[in-house]
């Protein structure tokens, strides 16, 4: 293989890594003595240039064939997701200008960008090894970033919880991956998809459960959500925004791909009557718990960031419905949903960030700090109205169509509408959610602020970002086609890896995916069969 070609395929990631290093070097070597604000502006400007370059590199790159059995895959969908991730990282950077949570601007930007690289790799791999490395590359900088406010005990506490629960589930994931490797004899999607079948070995289910735990943690699905409220509240707000948006997109995409594309044979069914074991009923259980717990617990929250955290758990539940629908349409609806959700959540956090800077309360913001916002900053409150109503799923905003599309995909999947009970539950919890979203809007629009309303200080770059995100949410809601069409070209790629096609025999599937695999299949499946087989195959190998 040619390393120059590999570098070409990895150019966007390489550009981002370089940008991170340049930003670090400039900050540490040149700007050591400069005022904090100047350092922040320079660091974010360097980031902006690098991210712009990476976005351009992504948009001009021709789609390349998968590298090394899918170690690295690049097509239009991954390119679009990477661009989205880069934009979100840039917004997170812009939001942190003028915030006072750290003096270490260079390190902050570097970690933010390295985490972004992790996310970019996460969306472009069909390989367990790169998936694990990318997940860790995403998570480790985020743990550190969460603790970045060294003055604040809540920041380090949030980071400790995030780290401990995160590495616990990463360990579970790694153990699950090791079992998947052992059962299938390989670590690529194609090898997994051809060999693993439900019911062959009970240990398959153990592997599925452990893998599921790893991803359930990443996407904050209950009952693996315990870190989310604390991290959203304790972490510096731009970091929390990035965790809530970018990390969600990358993790959900990988979540869906590993189960839909690599493990289609072990899906099972979550139909109300006639459920069969597999990962679909497990995901259904996660979805049910997340939707109920997230939406009910959010009602009791007094901090908007905590409220957004519980609402994120509820939203994770809806997105899980798309995954368990296990169809191409489900994948499309999932991507539409997580991308629009990420923009909405980023926007909501951006508004919270402004308010938090405005009130400067020692314990962070609370719901009542938003009182009378509509008199203090009509623009900001209008944008918040858009974000919150989109989260609540009110048309014509993107959040409405996202949910609707997922519900349609879920209802249409499965035989004879067996999954409609999940859709009913989702719609029911969504009706509950309106109550707490209206609590925020009630503070903003209904409750009058105490005393004379003072205008909220807004920086131009920040308000431009917020308005742009609000417009995006509105436009994507009115014309969802634009975003959906971005994902459809890859539908064939998803299909090739075995998402919805369920060929009658393993050999057919293998031949369809990868001609090379067909020949050694007999030996490759050796490990899935009965135990004594191990010794015979070993003997053969020797």
């Amino acid at each position: 293989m040619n390393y120059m070609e590999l570098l070409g395929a990895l150019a966007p990631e390489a550009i981002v890594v370089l940008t991170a290093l340049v930003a670090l070097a400039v900050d540490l070597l040149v700007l050591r003595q400069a005022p904090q604000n100047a350092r922040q502006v320079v660091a974010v400007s360097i980031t902006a240039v690098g991210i712009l370059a990476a976005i351009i590199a992504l948009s001009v790159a021709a789609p390349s064939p998968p590298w090394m059995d899918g170690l690295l895959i690049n097509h239009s969908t991954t390119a679009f997701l990477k661009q989205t991730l880069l934009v979100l990282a840039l917004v997170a950077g812009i939001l942190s200008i003028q915030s006072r949570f750290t003096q270490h601007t260079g390190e902050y930007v570097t970690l933010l960008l390295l985490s972004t690289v992790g996310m970019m790799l996460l969306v472009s791999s069909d390989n367990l090894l790169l998936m694990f490395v990318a997940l860790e590359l995403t998570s480790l900088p985020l743990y550190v970033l969460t603790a970045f406010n060294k003055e604040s005990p809540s920041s380090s506490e949030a980071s400790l919880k995030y780290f401990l629960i995160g590495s616990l589930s990463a360990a579970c994931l790694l153990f699950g991956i090791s079992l998947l490797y052992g059962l299938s004899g390989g670590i690529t999607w194609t090898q997994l998809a051809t060999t693993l079948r439900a019911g062959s070995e009970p240990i398959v289910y153990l592997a599925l459960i452990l893998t599921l735990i790893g991803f359930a943690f990443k996407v904050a699905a209950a009952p693996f959500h315990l870190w989310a409220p604390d991290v959203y509240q304790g972490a510096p707000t731009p970091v929390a925004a990035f965790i809530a948006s970018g990390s969600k997109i990358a993790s959900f995409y990988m979540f869906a791909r590993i189960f839909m594309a690599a493990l289609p044979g072990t899906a099972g069914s979550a139909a109300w009557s006639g459920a069969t074991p597999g990962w679909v009923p497990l995901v259904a259980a996660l979805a049910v718990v997340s939707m109920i717990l997230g939406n009910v617990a959010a009602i009791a929250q007094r901090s908007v960031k905590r409220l957004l955290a519980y609402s994120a758990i509820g939203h994770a539940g809806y997105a899980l419905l798309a995954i368990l629908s296990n169809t191409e349409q489900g994948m499309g609806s999932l991507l539409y949903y997580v991308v629009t959700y990420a923009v909405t959540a980023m926007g909501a956090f951006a508004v919270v960030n402004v308010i938090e800077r405005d009130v400067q309360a020692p314990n962070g913001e609370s719901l009542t700090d938003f009182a009378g916002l509509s008199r203090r900053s009509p623009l900001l409150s209008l944008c918040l109205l858009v974000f919150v109503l989109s989260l609540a799923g009110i048309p014509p905003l993107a959040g409405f169509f996202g949910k609707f599309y997922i519900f349609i995909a879920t209802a249409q999947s499965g035989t004879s509408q067996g999954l409609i009970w999940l859709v009913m539950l989702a719609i029911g919890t969504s009706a509950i959610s309106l109550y707490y979203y209206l609590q925020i809007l009630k503070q903003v629009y209904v409750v009058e602020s105490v005393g004379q309303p003072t205008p909220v200080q807004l920086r131009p770059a920040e308000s431009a970002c917020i308005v742009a995100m609000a417009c995006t949410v509105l436009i994507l809601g009115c014309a969802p086609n634009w975003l959906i069409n971005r994902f459809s070209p890859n539908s064939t790629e998803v299909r090739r890896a075995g998402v919805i096609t369920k060929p009658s025999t393993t050999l057919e599937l293998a031949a369809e995916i990868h001609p090379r695999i067909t020949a050694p299949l007999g030996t490759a499946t050796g490990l899935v069969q009965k135990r004594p087989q191990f010794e015979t195959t070993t003997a053969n190998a020797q």
Partner: protein
Amino acid sequence: MTPLHYYLIFAALLFSVGLAGALMRRNAILVLIGIELMLNAANLNFIAFWRYSPTANELVGLMFVLFSIGIAAAEAAVGLAIIISIYRHHRSTQLQHVDRLKG
């Protein structure tokens, strides 16, 4: 040659010990040690599966272990740094003392 499932059972035991430690210990450092045990149990699995696989010359399992050891080291470094920062604020690494965020 020792059968494969001996290794698998040992790895599973190690994983369980690590998991139990991570879930029940009250000290952050001990929790971290439990997590490291879990990671190493997974590594053991990889090595065993690799050694017994028909395609052992592809070195896939071994590669995975090398990467995961590296990642575990990075994770331990980040974890200890976070625990130090906790200690600065709370003068303790006991998890029950770290409970400002609730709700």
